[in-house]
């Protein structure tokens, strides 16, 4: 019987970077001729097709406005089961996309287990995450690390954390962008800086407000671009979204788009003065890479991707860096566009045959 690659998406939030990473990779593996079986653990294991995974991970975009203050909560996965209830066999490979999947049962079936770590900030930056999520991640790694044949990390930080648990770690590059096609119409009527990434503590979104206040106070009137914040909703995002709404989105100078579509991301990335990615420990660097794929310069707090990193907790320094880039536009870094098919090929080279 031909092998199947099981992609376990247990616990991944719809619209999250990790969820989209799994989806892009699953599609690329199918294009490469692999049999891919997405699954997730509820009390029991359930399976779903790649297209149902796409539906499960999809959250419609939502732009916050003065008259639109919905009660925002992090979404859990809707449960859609389809296909056979069969479990993986000894010829199969199970790739966990989170620190939540059912390792012991999979290992008992003889399947080979691997971890695809989009990021492991639940371990490296617990203060950004929910307490329960952090506790579960530690228990999962304690129980499952001995069963893992390998782990694949998307950043040096994730690789270092995983090596501490004794797992053999490979470092690979992911696909560069979501592949959205930009709209013909301009994204925004005025010049703007595009802040892309998870909204919340992991994305350091709260720092953007004091940064913009500093820019508005220290730069000539009319010279500060607008701010467009776009990304999935993450933990500890309530206070910053309340502040943005209280300020009427910095008196009309800011926009917030939750769960932007690939087309919206591409359009903002195409039209922005430059992009900024505030998260210092993102695994994928989705915001940075999407921007660079559209030819935008990206000011990034993340150490990878060739961008010159900055310290996102230092709002004074971030404001100074933005001011410098506005005064003297940065040379665009060389584009490192990498397709998801390339990423899938790298993965297949690592997987046990």
């Amino acid at each position, binding site marked *: 019987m031909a092998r199947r690659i099981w992609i376990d998406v247990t616990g991944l939030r719809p619209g999250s970077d990790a969820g989209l990473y799994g989806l892009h990779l699953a599609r690329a593996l199918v294009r490469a001729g692999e049999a891919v079986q997405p699954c997730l653990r509820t009390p029991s294991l359930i399976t779903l097709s790649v297209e149902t995974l796409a539906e499960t991970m999809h959250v419609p975009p939502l732009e916050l406005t003065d008259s639109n203050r919905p009660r925002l909560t992090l979404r859990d996965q809707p449960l859609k089961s389809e296909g056979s209830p069969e479990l993986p066999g000894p010829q199969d490979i199970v790739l966990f996309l989170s620190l939540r999947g059912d390792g012991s049962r999979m290992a008992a079936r003889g399947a080979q287990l691997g971890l695809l770590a989009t990021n492991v900030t639940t371990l490296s930056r617990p203060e950004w995450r929910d*307490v329960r999520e952090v506790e579960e991640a530690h228990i999962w790694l304690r129980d499952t690390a001995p069963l893992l044949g390998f782990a694949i990390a998307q950043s040096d930080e994730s690789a270092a954390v995983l090596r501490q648990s004794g797992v053999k770690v490979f470092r690979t590059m992911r696909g560069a962008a979501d592949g959205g096609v930009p709209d013909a119409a301009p994204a925004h009527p005025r010049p703007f800086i595009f802040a892309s990434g998870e909204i919340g503590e992991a994305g350091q979104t709260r720092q953007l407000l*004091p940064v913009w206040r500093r820019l508005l106070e220290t730069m000539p009137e009319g010279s500060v671009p607008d701010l467009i914040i776009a990304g999935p909703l993450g933990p*500890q995002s*309530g*206070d*910053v979204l*309340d502040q943005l709404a209280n*300020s*009427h989105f910095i008196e009309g100078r800011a926009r917030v788009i939750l769960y932007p579509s690939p087309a919206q991301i591409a359009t903002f990335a195409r039209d922005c003065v430059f992009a900024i990615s505030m998260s210092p420990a993102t695994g994928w660097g989705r915001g940075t890479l999407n921007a660079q794929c559209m030819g935008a310069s990206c000011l990034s707090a993340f150490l990878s991707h060739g961008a010159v990193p900055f310290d996102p907790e230092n709002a004074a320094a971030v404001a100074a860096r933005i001011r410098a880039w506005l005064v003297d536009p940065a040379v665009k870094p060389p584009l490192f566009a990498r397709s998801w098919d390339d990423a899938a090929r790298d993965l297949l080279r690592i997987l046990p045959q």
Partner: protein
Amino acid sequence: MTQSRILLCVFPTASQNEWQLATDALAEALHLAEPELVQPVRAAPSGWVRPNDRAPVPAPGPDDIVFLASVGWEDPAQLPLLEAARYAGAKIVAYVHDITPTRRPEWFAPEHTARFTAWIAAILRLSQMVIVPSSATARDLDALRRRLDIVDYGTKRIRPGDSVLPKASAASPVAGRFVLISAPLDVRIGHAGVLSAWRRLATRLDAGELPPLVLAGRAGGLTGDLQQRLARDLPDVVVRLEADAAERSALLDACLFSIHPAALEGWGFAVSESLARGKPVFAANSGGLPEAGQRQARYFDPLDPDDIARNVERTLRDPQELPRWQREIAQRFRPRGWDDMAQDVLVAISGLV
């Protein structure tokens, strides 16, 4: 000829924050200085009344001054009575500590900002004189007047008294060496920058060199996410949300030095209070804090945790530094009492009658 009166209008709250304590101290000092002239009143739907027994007070006339010792924007009875007083020829004098809701609306609920802004605009139009604690507040008022097209009838800067906390009546609830932030745990104070500095210091200093940081003050607005992070195991941070004025006083006496990182306060009682007790204090270099701390406080950019960490590290590494700084404060800081401020207020407003 009718005897002139100064109707001292205080809007009482149950809060023990520094602003309320300062208002109470000023009101008491004014009344003590001129018990015949100064009559405490408060606004009621029926008219002006005495605060203690709510007995009616004759409406102010041309020989009278109504002195607003604190903001009354939460008191719906106040503005109609002030307008009537002004129509009757009375002079209105307002003490305005700061106008933070108009400067940083993101820190307040929109309805709070709207009510405050309407109130301060009306007060600026009605008042013959506005008394402010600092040049910083004076500048903010000037900008607001220009924006709202309001004539400045006169702004007088009068330095407040230094000390608002009661003398400590019990021992500090925290033993050993520690550094204190005595302020509400509120987004306005900017605790996050100091916490970030403490994390940096923990990596630079040897074990035992970094004293714990004690955060003492009630929970305020928009810090739910910060409190989540504080709820984690942070060995170098002690949170005392229930600390009342007496406890904060004991903590201030016992700490090594204090820190006040608020980026936008009209005065900074936490700074002057610290100095009045001979206690070194690091303060934000913005708003009215440099006026409160004069040359005896040391300053940092509140948006720059590296700057905070550098200042603290320098002080901790040199064992002679704190004693030297304390001697400087003892020699050079001239404490100011509330009776001094009351005298200055009386002199300033006597010119109006």
